């Protein structure tokens, strides 16, 4: 079954009672059991532990990633947290991409260190750096690729090899490319982590997260944390995400095509210092991107000549593009990571990993690319 067919039909079936073609929103806390002996015979007892609408989404995401099972969460951050808590304990060590979403960095450095977990932030563009970061107590490697916001890419297959040798679990944050473009399990990874808030929903309607596991054994550990810590997804969010998923491939194709056109426009513009998009030949890891993914996604960044001051001027005056956090939606968004998404990463660390002050991040949406380009051009003219 092809991806587009799966994104529509996988995990869901018409309601057996009424024939309703869409999965009902089971907005219920609990489930009436037929008898004490038949407890859980219909599969559900309490909606923290499982809910039929949420389960439908988990089944769909499992099939889209080609995994064994999935657990969904209230947010992308709770999916990352559950990944950490499922495989790390006090005294353990994890290797994290040195460029990652600011929230992931904050969770590691400000929260989980309080529980005796150690982290190394390794340069995923340099496999030797990842390999040499491995310690005896390394239990998890979390790779974010392409990484937010610099678009640094990591060779998933190579890191999976390192993880396997180290006896560690390799989790890939696949939010930016989704299983439509990038398939971590086929490259040897163990877990695929998502903020479903982004492309899975696609409409800026929900916040949610998911962890898909390659094996049932891994899934069991994640599910245990999901139920124990209770950071679950609501049935309404699951339902909206189920609908969003149905157009994932068409949105990804169109948004990526728009992103390519915008990247080319920016690259040719005299007021632009640099553009970073994996689809551009000038992208330093273009070859790796082309090898391990079937598309380049719709995230990119650029720097205006004149750095931070010029970039701010552009972000404050640009029309059509919304100055906002979040990414992956049908609406095009423009973000200044240094003051917004990555404000909690220390200035020295930002400088070390290439999150420069003038970096302007674009999440390219579904609008007509001509309109998006015209809006950027007008804003650049004012700089």
């Amino acid at each position, binding site marked *: 079954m092809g991806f587009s067919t799966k994104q529509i039909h996988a995990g869901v079936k018409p309601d057996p009672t*009424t024939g*309703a073609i*869409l999965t*009902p929103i*089971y907005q*219920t806390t609990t*489930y*009436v059991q037929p008898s004490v002996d038949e407890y859980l015979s219909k599969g559900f007892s309490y909606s923290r532990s499982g809910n039929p609408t949420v389960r439908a989404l988990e089944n769909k995401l499992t099939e889209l990633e080609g995994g064994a099972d999935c657990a969904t969460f209230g947010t992308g951050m709770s999916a990352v947290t559950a990944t950490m808590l499922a495989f790390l304990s006090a005294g353990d060590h994890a290797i994290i991409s040195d460029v990652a979403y600011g929230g992931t960095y904050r969770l590691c450095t400000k929260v989980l260190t309080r529980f005796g977990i150690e982290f190394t932030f390794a340069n995923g563009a340099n496999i030797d750096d990842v390999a040499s970061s491995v310690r005896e107590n390394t239990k998890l490697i979390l790779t974010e690729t392409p990484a937010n916001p610099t678009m640094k890419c990591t060779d998933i297959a190579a890191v999976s090899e390192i993880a396997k040798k180290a006896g560690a679990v390799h989790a890939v944050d696949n939010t930016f490319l989704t299983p439509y473009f990038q398939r971590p399990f086929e490259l040897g990874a163990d877990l695929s982590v998502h903020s479903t808030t982004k492309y899975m929903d696609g409409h800026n309607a929900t916040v949610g997260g998911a962890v898909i596991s390659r094996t049932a054994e891994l899934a069991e550990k994640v599910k245990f944390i999901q139920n124990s810590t209770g950071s679950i997804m609501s049935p309404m969010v699951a*339902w909206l995400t189920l609908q969003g998923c149905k157009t994932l491939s068409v949105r990804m194709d169109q948004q990526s095509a728009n992103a390519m056109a915008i990247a080319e426009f920016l690259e040719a513009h005299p007021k632009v210092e640099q553009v970073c998009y994996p689809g551009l030949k000038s992208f330093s890891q273009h070859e790796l991107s082309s090898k391990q993914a079937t598309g380049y996604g719709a995230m990119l960044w650029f720097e205006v000549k004149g750095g931070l001051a010029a970039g701010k001027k552009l972000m404050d005056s640009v029309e059509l593009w919304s100055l906002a956090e979040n990414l992956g939606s049908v609406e095009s968004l423009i973000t200044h990571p240094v003051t917004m998404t990555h404000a909690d990463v220390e200035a020295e660390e930002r400088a070390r990993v290439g999150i420069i002050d003038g970096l302007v991040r674009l999440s390219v949406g579904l609008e007509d690319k001509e309109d998006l380009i015209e809006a950027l051009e007008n804003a650049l003219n004012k700089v």
Partner: protein
Amino acid sequence: MSDFYEFDTLSLHAGQTVDKEFGARATPIYQTTSYVFPDTDTASSIFNLERGGHAYSRITNPTVGVLEQRIASLEGGSAAVCTASGMAATFCGITAILSQGDHIVASSQMYGGNISLMKNTLPRFGITTTFVDPTDIDGFSSAIQDNTKLIYGELIGNPGLDILDLEAIAKIGSEHNIAFMVDATFNTPYLCRPFDFGANITMHSVTKWMGGHGAAIGGVVVDGGNFDWGATDKYPTISEAYAPFQGINLWEEFGPSAFATRIRAEAMRDFGPSMSPMNAFLLLQGIETLSLRMDKHLSNTLKILDFLSNHQQVSWVSHPSLPSHSSHELAKKYLPKGAGSIVSFGVKGGREAGKAFIENVELASHLANVGDSKTLIIHPATTTHSRIDAEALVAAGITEDMIRLSVGLEDVKDLQSGFEAGFRAARKFAGG
């Protein structure tokens, strides 16, 4: 669900069979447009009304269906159809049985939207209305014409709060074989079930007390199942062959739910004012606490009436529970638990004082709704009844200084302090 259960039990359980697939305790929200048919024979029999079942959510939806059955059960009716708003319910109820050339006799004291529908809109389709003073029973009789097909009124009139004498009017309807439809929004089935007193159809804006939280707009028409549509040739839409469905005769096929079936087959299918499943779910949640909320609405109302009646800046207070109200005796008869939580009163100093009060009152929200769990307040002359002319305004019992209050569930002490802020601002217009 057995109709022998008591009110509170019905408000929690009626209409719902626990989800068969997973046992979900709450009603699932069937947020779906359509339903997969097992085979073509089943499909065609559902389309032809030969069997129940769901085809398309404009016409029926399982979540909305639970709400419909729950309300029908609470109201003591045979069937109910939910609509996207209370106005849609009124419109569907009327157009199910009236056509060009037909006539309505209606109370003159009604929500401005109802008056506007009958006075301005329905005449464009050849349906005319004579409005009569709801306290003038003879007026109802004498307004009846050969082409009168419906008697319509609000049990508790908005905003004058006159009570409709249900039995007397039902008797007139029955003598002339004319259906009697009651807007029961202000009373809810908890305070009065109009079918017990001879009404034939009720409608509710379930946006109000039934939902109770100001969260969802919705309406419902309930078929009393107690009208003989075939006794005369007045109601061909129900008692004659219905061409779009192979000439089915709804009265013969559906008997006591023929009226509701006509709304389903025609209004929902052709006009399409369907309630959304999400709204039905929210409204079901509201109905689960209907009696608890109504009891508190009523006890708060009595306390507020006491407060207002003793306030020196209040020129008059109107509520059917007050012996001074002209409908006091009717209220005792039809609304023994209490006459609802709408209160109207005048602020000394007329229009300017009323305006100052409204603009400065705290806690009570200034908006055009009633029946929320929060206390709401409005100036009818400039808002809900602004589209009707001065003459009709007088007939509707509205004065320029009138303030309409929908008493909510807050602590009364806090409401009183909020009101005092309004009265302080109104003081300079009070004179003396």
